[in-house]
């Protein structure tokens, strides 16, 4: 797939979440909404490839094509989200919640993003980055990705993050209780 992508004018490929199945071997079931990944750099060494891509526009799959030799699909790009002033202020509140949750959750689990990670200054990009760093599972993240409006995205983000925060807090309480049960 990579050799084909690199041979094209635009070095892009689509990333979709697997609904059922595994990443290798085929036969997996995939979700119909994904993101275009634009290759920023690729390092080809003897026997391995290290690739860095950046998420670009979202798309919906119109039709899956044959997987041979690699998965392909006919996709339609989704419109970018419109952000007005109230949405931008709601974004700030959601971001504060996400960062606080990351700070709490990092006490229990190892997260890929730190609570003080720098994000883009542009709101249109920042809103997706806030969604991307939120400590959610894949299905929760996919629910955010398929949002049609910025308001819907932020509402889901706050809801999912609060739920995740509650789970972390409950786990913390369980751990404290377990510590209390230990013989002194």
């Amino acid at each position, binding site marked *: *797939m*990579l*050799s*084909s992508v690199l*041979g094209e004018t635009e*070095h*892009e*490929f*689509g*990333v*979709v*979440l*697997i609904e059922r199945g595994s*990443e290798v071997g085929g036969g*997996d079931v*995939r979700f119909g909404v*994904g*993101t275009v*990944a634009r*290759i*920023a*750099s*690729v*390092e*080809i*060494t003897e*026997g*391995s*490839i*290290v*690739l*860095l*891509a*950046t*998420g670009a*526009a*979202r798309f919906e799959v*119109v039709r899956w*094509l044959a997987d041979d030799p*690699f*998965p*392909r*699909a*006919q*996709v*339609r*790009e989704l*419109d970018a989200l419109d952000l007005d002033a109230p949405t931008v202020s709601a974004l700030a509140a959601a971001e504060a919640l996400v960062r606080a949750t990351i700070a709490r959750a990092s006490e229990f689990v190892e997260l890929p993003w730190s609570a003080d990670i720098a994000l*883009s200054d542009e709101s249109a*990009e*920042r809103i*997706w*980055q806030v*969604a*991307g760093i939120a400590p959610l599972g*894949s299905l929760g*993240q*996919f629910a*955010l*990705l398929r949002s049609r409006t910025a308001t819907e995205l932020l509402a889901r983000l706050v809801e999912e993050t609060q739920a995740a925060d509650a789970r972390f807090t409950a786990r913390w309480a369980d751990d404290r209780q377990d510590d209390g049960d230990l013989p002194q």
Partner: protein
Amino acid sequence: MTTELVTSSSHRCASTLRAKLRACSLPAASLYRARHRPSSRLAILNASPCLSGSLGLSEEFLSASRADHELAVDRQMPKTSRTVSSRSVINREHGTLQRSGVVDHEIPRVWSVLCFYPESGWPQRPSRRVSHLGRWRRSRRLWIPRSGSHYRPGRGRIAVMADATRELAMFPLGSVLFPGMPLPLRSSSRATSRCCRRCSGRRSTSSGWC
């Protein structure tokens, strides 16, 4: 894309166009669709490399096709926005491009063309369902909306909605990629080794782009 596909798609789009024309005659629908929604599609059209050269959907094409398809151009539109054409022009050009050996997938597919005359007229007689919203001027072959009605198709907008679908190589993953987020990937399987050799052959340097 084959000629058969274009033709069948054209027929399908004709019905879509009729549906959209009807939809645009509804209150508050036409302005939004004509001004905002298609603008991004136009950007897609203009970004397409095949829109320059022989398939440049230029003013000449519009003029030539206007008689047949009753297209109209809004003089207030940006110049780039006028580089549009009807599907039939594209189909005609499709044959030309095929003869000249241009790759099929470079040919744009116009999904539908919504055209409004600038003098507040409608190039085709609408269905009887909206006949109470205006009158049909047979001499000018224009539909003139009745005053006070919301039926305002003739704001001088020409809206082109391109079929923005494209074929894309897909990489199913167990995680979600968001716009603006980085995606680091590392692969070292046997298939990767083969791919490395092919990619290295394609480019002399082993380190990447951008």
